[in-house]
C-alpha cells in the first residue's frame, strides 16, 4: 500500500511540473487531502509478530508499514523497553489502542505523524476524521530557562520541514505560517530538547527548558571550566563515573582506571610489587622523554612521562589522587590527545587525568556510609627457591668446598679438611631437618579497612556536602602500611546569576615501611640456616651472610607523616544565557615529616666505631601552591551554527622546600629518639633545597559545529613559566581538531541501526614541564667552608642559552560508534606523537673535558611514538526494562616508539650501557623499549659452555660486544582487558582479565639467580633451576651453563623470553538491596553490597621472580554502601 501510494505521489508530482498554475494548485489541494486522509484509510493495517521487541522497533515498523512517523510525547513508555506483540493485519487503530492501553495514553494522527501523548494533557476528540481548519496559524512562543529567564538562541525546528528559527534575546520566537498538528522541536545546548505539537486554536506557547543533567558521558569535563558537549567534541577523552570505577575495585582510582581505559598504563614495578607506599608509574599513550638516561631521574624530581592530574579544577599530585577516597569521586576524565590536552599547554604532553568529586545536592539531608574491607594474601608463587638439601648440593657442585673457591669465599687459607668440616656441619643441619622457609617470615595475611561517611543536602540556594574517611591499608610485609584520614567540606551557594562553590579538604597520611627491610634479603637467606633472630650472621663463624631477621629490629623506624590542607573557591556569574564568567582560586599546603632510624646493632655498622653506630635521619618537606583563574565563556547558536568561545587566564605559584639532618651513634636498645645520639656524622651538614616556580597562561578556545554534523575545535595557549629561562619566558601551544557526525547526515539517516558514527581528527603541540628546571643561564652555588679571602662560589650549572624546550606534536584520529540502540558501542583511535627535540643531560653525552655536568641539558634527536587503542562493547542481552543486561567488552592498546636524529651523538651512552650491563641503546630507528644483547645458540652439550652467534651468523664460544644486536622489545604487541559484566535485576557480576601478548622480557631471575652466581653470591639462596637445569656432565642438554662455572655470563638472548600473560585484575559481585520492608524499617534508602577479588591469578609464559623487594599480594575485598 505504502509503495503504491508513493508511486502515485511521484507520478502526480512529475505531472504537476508540466501543468499550469491553477491545475497545480488543484492537484496540490488534492494531494494534501490525499495525504491528510491517509490515516483514516481503513486499509491501514499492521503486520508484526515478535517477542521481546522494543517500542522503538515497533514504531519503526509502523513507519515502514504505514508511512507514518511516530512521536512519543510522554515518558511513560521507555522506547528501549521490550514487549511481545502479535499483530496480523490488525488495523492500525486497534494496534495502537492495544499498545497504549496499559499506559493510559492516547494518540492523534496529524500531518503524517502519529503523536502519542498523555490523556490528561488535553481532552481531544478521539476521532479526528474531519480535518480541522487548514488555515495557517501565526504562532509565537517564548522559551525560558530553568530559572524562568528568557533563553536566547534556542532553535525551534518543525519536524519534517526545513522551517527553523531561533529565539531572540527575550526568548521569543515567531512562526508566521504553521498548521495545527505541526510538531516543534526546541533545543539548546546544555538542555534536554523538548517536543510539542501545535494544537488547534493554539497561537502562543511558553516553554521552560530543563537542564541536561546526570548524563555524564555527554559532557567532556576538561577541568578548566571549559566543558564540551561530547557530541561536538573532536578530541579523545574518556569519562568514567565514580560508580563505574568502584565496580572494578575499591583500592584506589588508579588501579580501577588502568583496568577500564586501555591507554592508561600502570608500568609494572617488579621491585616494589604490592607495596602500598610505592607510587605507581603511569604512562598515557607511551613515552615522550628519555627516562632511563644515567642520572636524569635524579635531576628531574618527577617522572618525565607522568600525566598531569587535575582535581576539581586545580592541579594536583599523583599522591593526592592515589590516596583519594574513591567514594567521593563523581567522575574521572582521561584527556589523551592534543585537542583535549592543549588547554594545559606546557604540562600536557603526557595526557591529563581530570578528577571531579561529588558535588553538594539540594534536598533533604542524605547520609551515605561506605565500608571497604579488604584482605591481602602474599603471592609468593613466582619464587622457585632451593630447599636446604638442594642448596647444599648446589654449593658442593659449584666447588665451594674445594680450594681455590673455598679460599676465595671464606677469605682465609683453607685446607681441604677445614672445607669439609664446614660442609659436614651444614650437612648435619640438613639431615637434622633444618629447612627454613625464609620467605614466609617477613610476610603475613593482612586485613585493611576504609570507612567513609558523607552527608549532603541543603536548600536550592545553599547546599553542603561534608565527609570524613579513614583508611588503614596494611601491606603484606609485616609492619608496612599506609594510614590516611581525610575530611572534606563542600559548600555551594547559588542564587540568580551567581553560583559559588567552596571545597575544603584536609588530609593526613602516615606511611610505615617494614622493619624487615628488603624482601630480597629473605629470598636470599640459606634454608639450611635455622631461623633465629639473635645472631647477626646466618653462618656463625664465617660471617658472610647477614641475618635479615636479626636486622628486623623492633626499634627501627621508617616512617613519614604528611598533613595537607586544600582550599578552593570557584564562582560562576551568568550574565546571559550565552555569556558567563567563571573564576576560581585555590590554595594548598602540605608538610611531610620523614623519620628513619637504623639501630646501632644493625649488621651494616659492624666494624664502625661505637660513636658512629646507628643512624637517625629527620627530614621535613613542604609544598605550597596558590593558583587562580578567570574564564569567560560565550556560546551562541545562529540557526545551524553553534559557536562556543572561551578565554581563560590563569596564574600559579608553587613552592617546594626540603631540609634534612642526620645524627649518628646510638646506645643499644634505644628507640631512635635523636636525643640519644652521640654525634652528627663526620663532615655531615644539613641538606636544604628550595624551589619556586611561577607560571601563567592565556588560553583561547573555539568550538564550532555546523548543524551538529561538522565540528571544529581550536585551542591556543600561551604559557609563561619561570622554568623556561629568562630569555624565553613564553611558549605557545595550540591544537586544531575536526569532526564529522556521520549519523546526522541525510544519507545515513535511513540506516536505522546506526545510532552514532563520528569521525574525528586533531593535531596540536603540547609541552612537557616535568623535565625539571632547565636554566638557560648559569647558576652558582656556595661552596662549603671559606678561605681567608671569603666564601667561594661554584659554577653548579652551565647555562645553555640555545636549549630548545621539549615539545610534542601529537596527531590523533578516531572513530566513535554506537549501533543497534546501544547494543554495540566503542571507539578506535590511532595516534602519532613526535617529540622534538629531546632534552638530555650532558652526563655521558659530552666528553667530561667540556666541564658540563649532569645539570647541563642539551638537545639531541627526537622520539616518535605511535599507537592505537580501542574499546569495544557488545551487549548480547540488553533488556533495560527488566534490568537484564549482559555486556562483553574488549579493550586493547599497542604503542611503538623509535628514536630519530640521534646519529652517533649518544654512542657514548651506548658504550656506558655496555659497561653498566644495560640492555637499552640509543639508536635511530630503534625503540627505547628494544632489548639489546648478543644472540645465543644455547649451551654446548659437550662442554657446558654457551655458544654465541656472531653478527655474520657463525657460532663462537667467545663473547664479543660487537655482536650485540636487537633481540626483542619489551612493549607487548597488544595488551588490554577482556571484560564482561552481567546485570540481572539487582545483581551485577563483573570480570576483568588483562592480557598482554607478544612482548619480550629479560628474565633477571634467570640471569642473576640461575646463572651469574658469582663467588660472593653463592652464600645466598638461589633459584632451584641453578641446581636442576644447569649442565653437569657431557651430553646434558641444558638451558643453562655448567654448574661449576662461576664466571660472569654476559647478557644474551638466552635470557630474553616471550612475555605473554593473563592477569585476573578484577572479579566482582555486587547486589543492590531493594527489599522495601527491610529498607524502610532500618531507615535505609539504598544498600549496596559488593565483593571483589583483585590480582587473583596470573598465567604467564615465563617463570620469573615477581616482587623482588616487596612481594605481590592477592586481594579479596568487600564493600558496603548504605544511604539513609
Amino acid at each position, binding site marked *: 500500500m505504502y509503495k503504491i501510494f508513493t508511486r502515485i505521489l511521484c507520478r502526480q508530482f512529475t505531472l504537476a511540473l508540466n501543468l499550469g498554475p491553477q491545475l497545480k494548485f488543484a492537484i496540490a489541494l488534492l494531494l494534501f487531502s490525499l495525504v491528510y486522509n491517509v490515516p483514516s484509510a481503513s486499509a491501514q493495517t499492521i503486520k508484526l509478530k515478535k517477542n521481546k521487541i522494543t517500542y522503538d522497533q515497533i514504531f519503526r515498523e509502523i513507519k515502514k508499514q504505514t508511512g507514518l512517523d511516530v512521536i512519543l510525547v510522554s515518558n511513560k513508555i521507555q522506547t528501549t523497553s521490550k514487549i511481545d506483540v502479535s499483530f496480523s493485519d490488525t488495523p492500525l487503530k486497534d494496534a495502537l489502542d492495544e499498545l497504549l492501553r496499559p499506559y493510559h495514553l492516547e494518540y492523534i494522527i496529524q500531518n503524517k505523524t502519529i503523536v502519542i501523548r498523555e490523556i490528561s494533557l488535553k481532552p481531544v476528540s478521539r476521532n479526528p476524521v474531519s480535518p480541522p481548519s487548514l488555515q495557517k496559524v501565526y504562532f509565537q512562543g517564548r522559551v525560558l530557562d530553568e530559572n524562568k529567564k528568557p533563553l536566547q538562541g534556542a532553535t525551534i525546528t518543525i519536524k519534517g520541514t526545513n522551517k527553523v528559527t531561533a529565539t531572540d534575546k527575550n526568548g521569543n520566537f515567531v512562526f508566521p505560517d504553521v498548521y495545527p498538528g505541526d510538531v516543534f522541536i526546541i533545543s539548546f545546548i546544555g538542555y534536554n530538547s523538548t517536543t510539542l505539537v501545535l494544537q488547534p486554536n493554539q497561537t502562543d506557547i511558553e516553554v521552560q527548558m530543563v537542564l541536561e543533567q546526570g548524563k555524564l558521558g555527554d559532557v567532556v569535563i576538561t577541568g578548566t571550566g571549559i566543558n564540551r558537549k561530547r557530541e561536538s567534541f573532536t578530541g579523545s577523552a574518556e569519562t568514567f563515573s565514580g560508580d563505574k570505577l568502584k565496580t572494578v575495585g575499591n583500592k584506589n582510582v588508579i588501579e580501577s582506571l588502568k583496568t577500564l581505559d586501555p591507554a592508561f598504563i600502570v608500568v609494572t614495578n617488579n621491585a616494589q610489587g604490592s607495596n602500598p607506599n610505592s607510587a605507581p608509574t603511569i604512562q598515557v599513550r607511551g613515552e615522550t622523554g628519555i627516562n632511563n638516561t644515567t642520572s636524569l631521574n635524579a635531576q628531574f624530581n618527577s617522572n618525565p612521562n607522568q600525566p598531569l592530574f587535575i582535581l576539581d579544577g586545580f592541579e594536583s599530585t599523583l599522591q593526592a589522587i592515589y590516596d583519594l577516597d574513591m567514594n567521593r569521586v563523581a567522575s574521572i576524565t582521561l584527556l589523551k590527545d592534543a585537542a583535549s590536552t592543549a588547554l594545559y599547554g606546557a604540562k600536557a604532553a603526557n595526557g591529563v587525568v581530570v578528577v571531579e568529586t561529588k558535588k553538594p545536592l539540594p534536598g533533604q539531608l542524605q547520609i551515605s556510609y561506605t565500608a571497604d574491607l579488604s584482605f591481602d594474601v602474599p603471592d609468593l608463587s613466582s619464587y622457585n627457591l632451593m630447599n636446604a638439601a638442594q642448596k647444599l648440593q648446589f654449593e658442593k657442585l659449584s666447588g665451594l668446598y674445594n680450594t681455590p673457591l673455598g679460599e676465595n669465599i671464606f677469605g682465609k687459607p683453607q685446607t681441604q679438611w677445614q672445607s669439609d668440616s664446614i660442609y659436614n656441619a651444614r650437612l648435619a643441619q640438613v639431615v637434622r631437618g633444618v629447612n627454613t622457609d625464609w620467605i614466609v617470615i617477613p610476610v603475613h595475611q593482612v586485613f585493611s579497612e576504609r570507612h567513609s561517611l558523607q552527608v549532603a543536602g541543603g536548600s536550592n540556594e545553599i547546599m553542603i556536602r561534608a565527609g570524613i574517611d579513614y583508611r588503614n591499608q596494611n601491606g603484606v610485609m609485616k609492619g608496612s602500611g599506609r594510614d590516611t584520614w581525610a575530611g572534606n567540606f563542600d559548600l555551594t551557594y547559588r542564587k540568580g546569576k551567581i553560583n559559588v562553590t567552596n571545597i575544603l579538604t584536609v588530609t593526613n597520611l602516615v606511611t610505615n615501611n617494614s622493619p624487615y627491610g628488603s624482601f630480597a634479603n629473605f629470598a636470599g637467606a640459606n634454608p639450611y640456616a635455622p631461623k633465629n633472630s639473635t645472631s647477626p650472621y646466618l653462618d656463625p663463624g664465617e660471617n658472610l651472610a647477614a641475618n635479615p631477621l636479626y636486622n628486623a629490629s623492633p626499634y627501627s623506624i621508617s616512617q613519614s607523616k604528611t598533613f595537607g590542607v586544600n582550599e578552593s573557591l570557584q564562582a560562576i556569574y551568568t550574565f546571559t544565557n550565552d555569556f558567563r564568567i567563571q573564576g576560581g582560586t585555590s590554595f594548598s599546603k602540605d608538610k611531610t615529616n620523614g623519620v628513619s632510624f637504623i639501630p646501632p646493632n644493625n649488621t651494616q655498622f659492624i666494624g664502625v666505631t661505637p660513636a658512629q653506630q646507628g643512624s637517625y635521619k629527620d627530614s621535613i618537606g613542604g609544598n605550597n601552591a596558590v593558583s587562580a583563574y578567570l574564564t569567560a565563556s560565550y556560546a551562541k547558536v545562529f540557526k545551524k551554527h553553534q559557536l562556543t568561545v572561551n578565554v581563560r587566564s590563569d*596564574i600559579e605559584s608553587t613552592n617546594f622546600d626540603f631540609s634534612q639532618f642526620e645524627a649518628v651513634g646510638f646506645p643499644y636498645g634505644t628507640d631512635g629518639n635523636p636525643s640519644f645520639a652521640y654525634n652528627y656524622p663526620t*663532615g655531615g651538614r644539613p641538606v636544604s633545597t628550595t624551589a619556586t616556580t611561577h607560571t*601563567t597562561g*592565556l588560553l583561547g578556545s573555539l568550538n564550532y559545529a555546523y548543524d551538529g554534523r561538522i565540528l571544529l575545535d581550536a585551542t591556543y595557549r600561551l604559557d609563561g613559566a619561570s622554568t623556561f629561562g629568562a630569555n624565553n619566558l613564553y611558549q605557545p601551544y595550540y591544537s586544531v581538531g575536526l569532526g564529522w557526525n556521520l549519523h546526522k547526515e541525510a544519507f545515513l539517516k535511513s540506516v536505522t541501526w546506526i545510532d552514532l558514527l563520528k569521525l574525528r581528527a586533531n593535531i596540536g603541540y603540547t609541552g612537557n614541564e616535568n623535565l625539571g628546571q632547565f636554566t638557560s643561564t648559569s*647558576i*652558582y652555588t656556595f*661552596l662549603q*667552608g671559606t678561605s681567608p679571602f671569603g666564601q667561594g662560589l661554584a659554577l653548579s650549572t652551565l647555562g645553555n642559552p640555545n636549549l630548545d624546550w621539549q615539545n610534542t606534536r601529537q596527531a590523533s584520529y578516531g572513530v566513535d560508534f554506537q549501533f543497534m540502540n546501544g547494543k554495540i558501542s566503542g571507539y578506535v583511535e590511532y595516534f602519532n606523537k613526535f617529540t622534538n627535540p629531546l632534552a638530555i643531560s650532558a652526563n655521558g653525552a659530552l666528553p667530561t*673535558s667540556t666541564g658540563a655536568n649532569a645539570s647541563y641539558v642539551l638537545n639531541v634527536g627526537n622520539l616518535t611514538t605511535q599507537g592505537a587503542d580501542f574499546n569495544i562493547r557488545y551487549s548480547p542481552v540488553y533488556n533495560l526494562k527488566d534490568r537484564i543486561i549482559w555486556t562483553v567488552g574488549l579493550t586493547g592498546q599497542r604503542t611503538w616508539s623509535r628514536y630519530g636524529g640521534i646519529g652517533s651523538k649518544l654512542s657514548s651512552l651506548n658504550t656506558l650501557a655496555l659497561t653498566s650491563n644495560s640492555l637499552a641503546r640509543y639508536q635511530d630507528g630503534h625503540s627505547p623499549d628494544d632489548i639489546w644483547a648478543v644472540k645465543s645458540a644455547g649451551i654446548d652439550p659437550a662442554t657446558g659452555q654457551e655458544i654465541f652467534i656472531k653478527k655474520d651468523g657463525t657460532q663462537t664460544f667467545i663473547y664479543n660486544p660487537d655482536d650485540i644486536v636487537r633481540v626483542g622489545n619489551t612493549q607487548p604487541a597488544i595488551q588490554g582487558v577482556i571484560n564482561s559484566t552481567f546485570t540481572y535485576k539487582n545483581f551485577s557480576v563483573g570480570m576483568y582479565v588483562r592480557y598482554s601478548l607478544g612482548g619480550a622480557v629479560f628474565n633477571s631471575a634467570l640471569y642473576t639467580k640461575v646463572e651469574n652466581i658469582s663467588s660472593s653470591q653463592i652464600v645466598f639462596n638461589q633459584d632451584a633451576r641453578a641446581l636442576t637445569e644447569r649442565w653437569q656432565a657431557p651430553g646434558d642438554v641444558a638451558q643453562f651453563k655448567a654448574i661449576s662455572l662461576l664466571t660472569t655470563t654476559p647478557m644474551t638472548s638466552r635470557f630474553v623470553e616471550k612475555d605473554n600473560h593473563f592477569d585476573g585484575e578484577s572479579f566482582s559481585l555486587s547486589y543492590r538491596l531493594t527489599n522495601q520492608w527491610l529498607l524502610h524499617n532500618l531507615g535505609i534508602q539504598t544498600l549496596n553490597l559488593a565483593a571483589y577479588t583483585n590480582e587473583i591469578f596470573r598465567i604467564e609464559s615465563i617463570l620469573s621472580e615477581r616482587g623482588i623487594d616487596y612481594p605481590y599480594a592477592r586481594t579479596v575485598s568487600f564493600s558496603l554502601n548504605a544511604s539513609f
Partner: protein
Amino acid sequence: MNRDMKSKSIYLIMAAALLILGGCKKFLEVQPQGKYTQDQVFSNEIAIQQALNGIYNNIASNNLYGANLTNTVIESLGQRWAPNQQAISLYQAYTYTKTTSEATFESIWTSAYANILQANQFIQQIDVAAKNGVISSQHATELKGEAIGLRAFMHFDLLRLFGPVMKTSPTGAAIPYYTKADAVTRPILNATQAIDSVLADLNTAKNLLSSDPIITKGPDTTSHDYYVGSRNQRFNYYAVIALQARAYLYEGDNADANATAKTALAAFDKWFPWMVYTDIVNNANPDRIFAPEMIFGVYNPNMYVNYLAYFSPTLTSTQIVTATPTMVQTVFENNTNDYRYSSTWATGTGTTAGLEIFNKYADLTDATRPWRFIQPLIRKSELYYILAETDPSLTSQLNYLNTVRNNRGLANLPTTTTNATLITEIQKEYWKEFWGEGQIFFYYKRMNFQYVPSAANDYNSSDTFYEISPIYQVPLPLSETTPR
C-alpha cells in the same frame, strides 16, 4: 541585561586578564633560592671575588690538589709510600684499568675540567662586569690574570699526568685545551700543542698581572686584602714566571727555562726569603711547609682532616699512608742535619710503632699562624733546581744547588762533582724537597727514567735500585673518550 553593560563587562575581563599577564614578566622572573645566577654574580664585586674564590677552593679539593695531586695518588705513582694499603698498591703497580683507579683518575680529570670551565666562565664574564662598571678595570685585569694563570696551571698538570712523555713523543696525543665556557667539545691536542697553549696563556697572564701588587709590595702574608694581601695564596705574577720556567723545562726547552728563571731570580730572593732554621726546629709551631719560600699555594680546609685520615700516628698500620724507615733513610742519606728530615718525619708509637710518620701536613698548636691550612704548590727552590739543571756553566750549576743545600742544613757538594753526579744530586733534591707535593712522578716522567726505585722494595737494595718501570701516561678516562 543590555548590550552596553555586557560589552563593558567583557572589557573588564579582558582588562583583568591582560593585567594578570602584563604583570607577568616580573612574576615569571624567579630567582633560584640558595643559588646565584650568573647575572647576579657578575653585577656585584663581592660576588665576583667569591666566584674567583670558588676556583681556588675547587683547586684545593681532595680530587685535585687537596689530596690526589699532592700527597696521595700522585705520590703513590712516584713510589713514595709503602704499599701497606690496597688502594695505593694499585697506583704503585701503574694499574690504570681497575675500576677504582679508573674512578680516581676520572675524578681528577672531571674536577679539573669542571674548574677550568668555571675559570673560563669567569674570564668571559669579568670583561662584561668591567665594561658595566661593576668592578674597576685595574681590579678586573688582576683577577682575569689570575684566572688565566690558573687555567694554564690546571691544563699543565693534566698534560703532565695524561699526556705522553715529552722526551720521546712530543707529538703524541695529550689533552684538549679549553678557553671558552660553551660546552663545545674541543679536539685533543698533541703534547707540544698543549704546552704551547699553556705558554700562550701564561704570556697573557703575565701581561695582565704586570702591575700585580706583589711586584712592589711582596706577598704581604699578614693581610687578606683581596687585591694586595697574601698574594702567595693567589696565582700571582711570580707564580706565572715560575710556572713558565717549569713548563719550558718540561718541554725540554732548557734555554728558555733558564732565561725565564733568571729574569726574576732577584725578585724571588727579595720577596721569598729562605727558611729560618729556628722557625722549623725547636718551635712549638714548626713551619714544616717552608711558607716564606712558597710562591704559590692554596688554602686547603681539609688539610688536617686528611692528615687524620691518611698520615696520623693514631691510625692502624694497614690504614696509615707511610714510608718505611729504610725509604726515609735512603732518601735523606741518613743525614739528620737536613731540616726537611727532622721537621717532616717522626717515629710512630703504639699502633704505628716502627713506622715513619709523615708530619708535613700536621696541624699546628697556634691556630693563628698564617701558613696554617696552606698547601704549597710552587716553591722557590724549584727555580734553583731548574737553574742548576739548565745553566751552561757547571760552577753556576753547583752554586745554585748548593744555595738550596746550605739553606737546608747541608754542606756544599764537593767541587769535583761531575755533570752526571750533579744530575743525581738534583734528583735527590727533588726527592727530599717535594715529599707530599706531587712533583717527583712528573720529574721521573720528564726525565723518562726507564726504571725508578720501587716502594715495594723499600728503596733499599742498591744493586736493584732502579727496579720498577713506570707507565708514565695515564689513559684518558672513558667519560672523555667514549663521547668523542
